[in-house]
């Protein structure tokens, strides 16, 4: 067991995936000698060489398309799109080609493609480099979307993504790259599509991912001191979503809170709330609480961005309000 950063966990997962299976290769901009814009691929090119770690021109459509094509021939590409927002320039390749290819061909092809994207706000990169981009792709069945929210999950979910026979969008929260956590050598593999109960509690089920999971965890600690026991559930995969685990928790706590760092419309959080309420209406003692960011793009200035993101304080306060209500 070792104490590593989220970024190091991902780097290590990539290294182990490349070592485990010759079919795996990495493709992206400046990921080889330069080690990636976030330095997450450092050392991989040195160890595995230019046929396993490929630098490309600035051509995201070609990056994703090349990954699809190589996967058709049995390769297992890992494409890096750098800032997740850049998924916009290759959206068609992901949503129309990668997601639907198997279906359109009646199952003739499998597409074990993993796409890495650096997600999220908080670091001052402004509107075009700060989104939680997973919400763009939720209505695209055929994709699997994972959003690791801890060091251990980052490692395990990456390994699972590369081993998965289906396309996986792997969102790394760039605000967590330097967050530390422990990584055990013999951790059990994590299944894509399964939520994790991060913390058990009887009073309220809080569902959150990535940066918001971190904040919700701290809010839960503060609330525990007041006798409020939060059950914190991280869906980890937001497509498809593990409604079962979340729902079972709500059956026990009778309260559902969703925390996300994006606007509500079209979000995974709205999807969770809609489905859980539809399935477990009778379990709920109170309306679901939706803690989201404002309905605006992400602003640049420090004070604005800080206020834009749901804070630990806001999370705790709104949960108090819900339980008091």
């Amino acid at each position, binding site marked *: 067991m070792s104490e590593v950063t989220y970024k190091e966990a991902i780097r290590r997962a990539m290294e182990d995936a490349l070592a485990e299976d010759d079919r795996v*290769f990495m493709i992206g901009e400046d990921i080889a000698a330069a080690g990636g814009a976030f330095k997450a691929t450092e050392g991989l090119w040195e160890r595995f060489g230019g*046929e396993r770690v490929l630098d*490309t*021109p600035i*051509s*995201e*459509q*070609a990056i*994703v*398309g*090349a*990954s*699809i*094509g*190589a*996967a*058709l*021939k*049995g*390769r297992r*590409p890992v494409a890096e799109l750098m800032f997740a927002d850049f998924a916009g320039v290759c959206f*068609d*390749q992901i949503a*129309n*080609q990668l997601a639907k*290819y*198997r*279906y*359109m*061909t*009646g*199952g*003739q*092809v*499998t597409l074990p493609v993993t796409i890495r994207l650096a997600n999220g706000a908080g670091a001052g990169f402004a509107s075009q480099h700060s989104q939680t981009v997973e919400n763009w792709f939720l209505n695209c*069945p*055929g994709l*699997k979307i994972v959003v690791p929210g801890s060091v251990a999950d980052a490692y395990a979910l990456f390994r699972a993504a590369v081993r998965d*026979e*289906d396309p996986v969008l792997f969102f790394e929260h760039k605000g967590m790259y330097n967050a530390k956590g422990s990584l055990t050598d013999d951790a059990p593999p994590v299944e894509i599509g399964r939520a994790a109960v991060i913390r058990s509690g009887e009073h309220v089920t809080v569902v959150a991912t990535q940066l918001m999971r971190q904040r919700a965890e701290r809010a839960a600690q503060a609330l525990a001191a007041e006798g409020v026991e939060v059950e914190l559930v991280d869906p980890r995969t937001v497509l498809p979503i593990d409604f079962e685990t979340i729902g079972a928790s709500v059956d026990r706590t009778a309260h559902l809170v969703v925390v996300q760092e994006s606007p509500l419309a079209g979000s995974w959080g709205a999807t969770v709330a809609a489905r859980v309420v539809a399935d477990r209406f009778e379990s709920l003692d109170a309306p679901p609480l939706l803690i989201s960011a404002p309905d605006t793009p992400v602003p640049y200035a420090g004070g604005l961005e800080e206020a834009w993101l749901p804070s630990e304080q806001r999370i705790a306060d709104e949960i108090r309000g819900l339980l008091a209500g």
Partner: protein
Amino acid sequence: MRLDTTSSSAVVEGDPTDDELLGMLRRMIEIRGFEDEIQRAFTKNLVRGSTHLCNGQEACAVGACSALRPGDSMVCTYRGHGAVLAMGASLERTFAEILGRETGLCRGKGGSMHLTDVEVGAYGSFAIVGAHLPIATGLALAARLDRTEAVSLCFFGDGSTNIGAVHEALNLAGIWRLPVVFFCENNLYGEYSPLPSTTPVEQLADRAAGYGMPGVRVDGNDVVAVRRVVAEAVARARAGEGPTFVEGLTYRHRGHSRTDPAKYRPAGELERWLEHDPIPRLEALLAERGVAAAAIAQARADAESAVAEGYAAALAASAPAVELIHEDVYA
């Protein structure tokens, strides 16, 4: 840019034998018959959505695909019935797909615009203009990484050369010297727009220079010429010398899709092109080479009955079971 000007009358090394040419003729007639049948089926409401026929362009499909060998791959567009059949897909299952039958190539889920038959190397027909060029590049990348010497052949239209994905794919293939043959079927129109109204270069093959690859222009209605140019490009690709951009000049006899009457064509244009119809041209070449008229007639008869049988069998097949909706989303 190089213009291929070799004559098909003179036999060149590597050219198809007379027997091979008869086979290619048969395939071209099958494709023509297939498209005519689909057009009739469409007007009878047996084909859903839209359908884009390749009548007149058969020499591109058959000539280019004949230069491939097993293990190579091909991707094409929604106007891809001919290309998929040229790779060897079953007439019956291709009909069945477009008719929405469970025996279709894609179990009835893809339809006219998404014909795919991985077994014969037809990795897909794509309905978003230009989207498949990056994928063709990836098929070539796998060949390079796996050292299989396989080649990736990619058909696309003249109109599609102005979309971003095409640019990115050509550039990537060029800089990595990937084994791809980009075959642009220049049929003069993108939908209803003539090429000069959308594209400020006269010869599309000229754009190849901007991607560090050779560009060749060929008479796309001369199946032997197409075969020669593509065979050379395939040989370059296999030898690790990188991609080639081939522009095949051709013409679609019918409108863009469905019931488009193609009124935007200048008077006489279709008629002039019909004089260069690739099928009679190949028949004339065979005659010139001394192939017996009976053999040519036999090829035609075989093609026609194969189409008729394929269509009848496809029509008789049943629609997909409703449960199929939920299959094939994930592996």
